[in-house]
C-alpha cells in the first residue's frame, strides 16, 4: 500500500516554523469569530457550449469574514476565476450560467439577482481588481476621472467636485507619490505598479465590504508585487474589507491569507486556515501542490515532486473523486463515489473532500 512518504514532506522543521510563522496560536484562535460578510452555499456554474454542458463549478461553498483574506488556489482551469466572476455577477453568459446554490450577501442572494439589480452591488458592495491593469483601465480617460466615475454612479447626489476630492483622497490612500500628477495622467503614462494602485483606489473608492483580487500581481515584477500585496493587506486591515485573493502562487498565499480554498476541476477539495494548509495539508492534491514548489530555503538538490498525470478536461471528468486517477493513495471506491466536504476529526474549520481522511484509512 502506498504510504504517506509517497509525497515528500514539505521542508521546514516544526521548530523553524514556529519561529517564523505569521500565524501564531493566537491568530488561529481568532479564526472563524469575525462577522460573516459573504456566505456561498453549494454554488454550481455550468458552461452550456455547443459540445454539451460542462460543469465549471460544482457545489462550491465558503464563507468570507470581515477583515480576513480568503485565498483561492489551484491550477489553470480549476474554476478559481469562475468563482470570482460568479460572485461579481460577471459570468460570461452565454455560455456560463449559475445552475444552483446561493451567494448570500447579508440578506440578499446575489445569485438570484437580475443584471440591473446586480449593478447596484457591483462597485459599491463588491470591488474587483484584475490581473492586467492596462487592459482593465480606459486608455482615453484620465486616472482621476476613472475613479470619479465609479463614485458618481453609486452616489448620484454627490457633486463632481466632491467626487474629485474623494478620488484624490483614494489616490493618496493607496500610496501613490505625487497624487495630483497621477490624477491627471492617462493610464499609458503610468507604470504597471502605479496602474494597479489606481485599480485598487477605484475598487475601494465606494468602501466595498468585499474586495476580489484576481491574480492581482501576476503581471508585475517581484519588488512591485510585494508593494501591491502589502497595500492590499494594509487596506484590508484599515478598512476592514474582506479580501478574496485568487492566485496560483503558494508563496503569496502563505504571506497573505487567513483562509485557503484549494480547488481542482471546479470542486473545492480542501478548505482550512492558511496555517493548516501549509503545516497540516490533508488532501493528496494539496500536499502534492506544496511539494512541487521549489523552496528557496531548501538545501536539497533532489528532483522536485511532480504530481503524476495531467489535469483532466472538463468535458472528460473522471467518475468518483476527480483527483483519483492522479492520486497515489486511490482505492477502488475513489473511482466509484465522489467524496463531499467533511471536517477533519478534531478541527471543525478544516474541511477536506477525500475518502482517505473521511473514512480514516490510517497508514
Amino acid at each position, binding site marked *: 500500500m502506498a504510504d504517506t512518504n509517497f509525497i515528500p514532506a514539505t521542508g521546514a522543521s516544526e521548530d523553524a516554523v514556529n519561529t*517564523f510563522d505569521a500565524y501564531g496560536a493566537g491568530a488561529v484562535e481568532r479564526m472563524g469569530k469575525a462577522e460573516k460578510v459573504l456566505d456561498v452555499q453549494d454554488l454550481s456554474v455550468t458552461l452550456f457550449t455547443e459540445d454539451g454542458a460542462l460543469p465549471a463549478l460544482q457545489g462550491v461553498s465558503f464563507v468570507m469574514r470581515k477583515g480576513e483574506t480568503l485565498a483561492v488556489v489551484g491550477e489553470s482551469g480549476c474554476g478559481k476565476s469562475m468563482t470570482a466572476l460568479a460572485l461579481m455577477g460577471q459570468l460570461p453568459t452565454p455560455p456560463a450560467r449559475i445552475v444552483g446554490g446561493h451567494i448570500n450577501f447579508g440578506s440578499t442572494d446575489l445569485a438570484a439577482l437580475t443584471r440591473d439589480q446586480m449593478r447596484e452591488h457591483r462597485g459599491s458592495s463588491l470591488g474587483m481588481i484584475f490581473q492586467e491593469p492596462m487592459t482593465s483601465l480606459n486608455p482615453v480617460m484620465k486616472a482621476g476621472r476613472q475613479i470619479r466615475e465609479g463614485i458618481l454612479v453609486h452616489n448620484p447626489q454627490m457633486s463632481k467636485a466632491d467626487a474629485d476630492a474623494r478620488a484624490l483622497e483614494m489616490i493618496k490612500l493607496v500610496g501613490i507619490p505625487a497624487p495630483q500628477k497621477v490624477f491627471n495622467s492617462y493610464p499609458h503614462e503610468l507604470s504597471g505598479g502605479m496602474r494597479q494602485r489606481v485599480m485598487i483606489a477605484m475598487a475601494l473608492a465606494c468602501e466595498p465590504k468585499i474586495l476580489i483580487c484576481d491574480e492581482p500581481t501576476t503581471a508585475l515584477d517581484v519588488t512591485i*508585487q510585494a508593494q501591491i500585496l*502589502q497595500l492590499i493587506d494594509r487596506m484590508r486591515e484599515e478598512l476592514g474589507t474582506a479580501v478574496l485573493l485568487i492566485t496560483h502562487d503558494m508563496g503569496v498565499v502563505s*504571506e497573505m491569507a487567513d483562509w485557503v480554498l484549494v480547488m481542482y476541476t471546479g470542486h473545492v477539495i480542501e478548505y482550512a486556515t492558511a496555517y493548516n494548509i*501549509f503545516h497540516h495539508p490533508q488532501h493528496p492534491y494539496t500536499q502534492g501542490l506544496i511539494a*512541487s514548489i*521549489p523552496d*528557496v530555503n531548501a538545501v536539497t538538490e533532489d528532483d522536485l*515532486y*511532480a504530481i503524476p498525470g495531467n489535469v483532466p478536461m472538463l468535458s472528460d471528468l473522471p467518475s468518483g473523486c476527480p483527483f483519483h486517477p492522479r492520486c497515489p493513495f486511490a482505492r477502488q471506491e475513489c473511482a466509484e463515489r465522489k467524496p463531499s466536504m467533511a471536517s477533519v476529526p478534531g478541527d471543525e474549520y478544516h474541511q477536506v473532500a477525500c475518502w482517505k481522511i473521511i473514512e480514516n484509512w490510517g497508514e
Partner: protein
Amino acid sequence: MSSVAETTNGARVVLEVSGLVKRFPIKGGLVRHEIGQVHAVEDVSFVVHEGETFSIVGESGCGKSTTGKCVLRLIEPTAGSVKLDGKEFTQLTGEDLTRERRKMTLIFQDPYSSLNPRMTVGDIIAEPIDIAGIYATREERDARVEQIMEEVGLDLAFKNRYPHEFSGGQRQRIGIARAIVMQPELVICDEPVSALDVSVQAKVINLLKQLQREMGLAYVFISHDLSVVKHISDTVMVMYLGHEMELASKEELFGNPLHPYTKALLDVIPRIRSERVQDKRILEGDVPSPTNPPAGCCFHTRCPFATDRCKSEVPAKHEVTPGHFCSCHLYDE
C-alpha cells in the same frame, strides 16, 4: 574572468561573453533621426562551462532576455564579444554562422506562440535537422525524431498531431525536443517555466535537469523566479537596468548576498511559511526608465545605502571573495 574558470574545477568553457553592450536607438521627428537610446545591456561579462546552469535573474526590463538574444545574435550586440568554444561568434557570417549556430539553441517562454500551428509535432522537432540537412534519408531523420521524443517523454503517437491539441507542459516538451535535437552544447532557456502551472513546472524543471545530466548540456537560464533559479542553477548573475549587479555561485549568492539589490530581491520573494507580507521590508519605488538611466550606480535611486559617490560614479565590478563578483561602492577597498 580566468579566476571564475579556475574555481569550477577546470571544466571546459563553452561560452565566454565579455563587455556585451546593446543599445536600441529611439527614432523620432520628421526624418526619423535618432533622438535617444534605450540602454538595454551595459557591459555584461560572464562565462558558462560545460554542464553548468548559469542563471540570469532580474526584473522586467533589466536586460536578461536581451542578453540571451545577443548571445544567439537574434539581435546584434552593439559592442562586446561572444566566444563560443573559444571562437569569436559575433563576427561570423553566412555558412560559418549557420554551422556554429547549431551549437546554441533557445527554449522560449510561451509554449503557445513559439510552435507553428500548421506543422505537426514531428515536423516541428525535425525542422532544425531539415535545415542543417544532416540526415541523408527520411528514415534516419524520423528515427532521430522518435529518439528525441522518447528522451523528453512525449508519446510517439503524438508525432502526427498539431500543437493546439496539447497542454502547456506538453508543448514545452515539444519546444525542448526541438532545442536539443541537434545536440547543442548550450541551450538558452528564456523563462521556460513561467507560463506553466506549478505541478507542470516541476515536471519541466526535472526534465531539463535530467537532459543536462544525460547530454552534458550547458544552460543559460533566464528567469525572474528566484526559487526556481535556486533550485536549478550552479552560478547566478543578478541584473538591474542592463547592468550586472552581482555574480556568484548559487550557494554564495543565496547564502551570502552582497549587493543591496540582491538582498532586496531575496527579501521580497513570496515564501511558504514565512512572515506576513505586512511585516516585510520592501524596496520602494519603481525601476527607472532604461532610456534615461540614473547617473552613477543605476540602483542609487532605490538603494537604502546610497551615498553621494553612488550618484556620480559608476561602481566597477569587484571580485570580493574568489568567484563572487559585485558591482557596488560598499565593497570597494
